[in-house]
């Protein structure tokens, strides 16, 4: 486990002249019935730096036309698999550190370990499935696609979410759905204090206990359409639904906060 020496340029940019290492082994999988031929690749990230890993991913997806990449031993490094803007399948065999899979548009990513803070930040479309736990801020500012965490997540999951779906198989920490603006969150376990604090819109489904609701978050009744969405989403990812769901939405009292009388403002907060 030799520590890697990372070079910085005068502006503080890490590895300014890094190159894709080109260590991946690529094979072409022949067409099989309805499935067309495609190229798949596998590479080991253990000895590579963050920049090298991301450059190798880009080389494979953009230059080599690979649509199925497997990365081994990411070793909880930060900022891995970010900014990939193409339809492809990426399997990450291990755990990621902070800011994993951010700013992506299209990929279908499966992570067999856990992820740190801010996974899938600002993701536009695609799917991320994390087999174990996630840190805080999972799916921050998510715009679209599905983020699935089969384990527990930390605090402020889906902060500033503007679309898409976040599904959590375990428990979630405090301030889940903080400033949620659009999209939906499905939490199968318990949630911490301040659920849906200052949410503008969107919907949060909770299967377990709710420690407390945040400002301007209210409980609503589940309609037929809600059950349909929940059944479909959980079926896709093979997750067991809990006994019953509760649904939480915006109370809309903060929408016109400026027009409220001082006494009314106190009631809202």
């Amino acid at each position, binding site marked *: *486990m030799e*520590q890697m020496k990372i070079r910085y340029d005068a502006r503080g940019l890490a590895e300014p002249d890094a190159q894709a290492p080109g260590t991946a082994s690529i094979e072409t999988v022949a067409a099989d019935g309805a499935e067309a031929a495609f190229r798949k690749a596998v590479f080991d990230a253990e000895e590579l730096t963050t920049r090298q890993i991301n450059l190798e991913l880009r080389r494979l997806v953009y230059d080599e036309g690979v649509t199925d990449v497997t990365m081994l031993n990411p*070793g*909880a*490094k*930060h900022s891995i698999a970010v900014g990939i803007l193409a339809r492809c399948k990426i399997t990450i065999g*291990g*755990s990621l*550190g*902070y800011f994993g899979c951010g700013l992506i548009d299209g990929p279908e990513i499966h992570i067999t*370990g*856990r992820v*740190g*803070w801010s996974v899938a930040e600002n993701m536009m479309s695609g799917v991320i499935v994390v087999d*174990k*736990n996630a*840190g*805080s801020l999972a799916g921050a500012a998510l715009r679209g696609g599905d983020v699935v965490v089969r*384990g*527990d997540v*930390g*605090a*402020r999951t889906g902060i500033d979410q503007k679309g898409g779906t976040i599904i959590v198989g375990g428990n979630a*920490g*405090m301030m889940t759905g903080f400033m949620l603006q659009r999209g939906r969150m499905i939490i199968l376990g318990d949630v*911490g*204090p301040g659920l849906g604090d200052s949410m503008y819109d969107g919907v949060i489904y909770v299967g377990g206990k709710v420690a407390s609701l945040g400002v301007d978050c209210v409980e609503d009744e589940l309609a037929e359409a809600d059950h349909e969405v929940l059944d479909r989403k959980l079926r896709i990812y093979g997750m067991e639904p809990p006994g019953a769901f509760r649904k939480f939405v915006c109370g809309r009292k903060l929408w016109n906060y400026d027009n409220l009388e001082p006494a009314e403002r106190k009631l809202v907060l």
Partner: protein
Amino acid sequence: MCGIAGIIHRDGPGDIGTEMTRMLQSMKHRGPDSSGFALYGPPDELMVMRLKLADPNEARDFGWSERMERHRNEIEHRLAKIGAMVDLVQGDQEYAYRVKFRYSGDLKALADYVEDVPGCEVLSLGHSLEIIKDLSDAESVADRYHLLGFTGSHAIGHVRMATESDVDIAGAHPYWAYPFSDIAVVHNGQLTNYHMWRRRLERLGHRFQSECDSEIIAVYLAQKMDDGLSLETAMKQSLDELDGVFTYLVVTADALGVAKDEMAAKPLVLYESPQLVALASEEVAIRAVIGHEIDTHDPYEREVLVWSR
């Protein structure tokens, strides 16, 4: 930003010097200003004291080396005068020393008397705790103070990005809980009621060597334990009495504890096995000392956890 790390062996001592160096070095990007270690070697009936006489980055005039020598002699003289039988004085640097001595009197009297020597700060005092802190990254500090191969049961460490106070040894973590034996703290965050607690603790007679908010946590906890509370109870009270954002690690002669504030604003990743517990601001630090694939999780807000060796 700062990075913190802790490790405790549950099945006998390990090479905590090397382990903590690796953990801290892997988080160098979180704080390159200074690095610090609080290491617990095998408990000894002798006391061990780490102290510094000057800062490495202060301007050195012509008489600097002689002055260091004179101050070191003065400290040995004062230790003898207050009733400590000095066994060993080791100087890893001209300005930083490790002293072993036999002493059974009041620690506060001893620490105050030693710190009365100009420029001197007692970094740690106890029967097994040794705090080593200096400027630059963890590998350089470990190299300068010969920490690789330091055997012990548990340790905490810190890499610092200075935000609230100066880049010097006084501002570096871990902080010893002056004047209580074998207690130290590292902290990631900011305390907003620092001045109030500092005044309260100063009224009880405690001294503070830096302007760093983290320094009060160690003294705060040690004072509570001195008042009869358990470590865990003291830490739980800190969640309500300390304001701001914090994740801190605290070590005593036989335990390692962690507490997170109610906003869960500062990160912490935890790995537990029957052999050891390792925790750090980032998972890369834990992986730097564990060779196999591991499962980790993040403790939630207001969590207080304590492990004993």
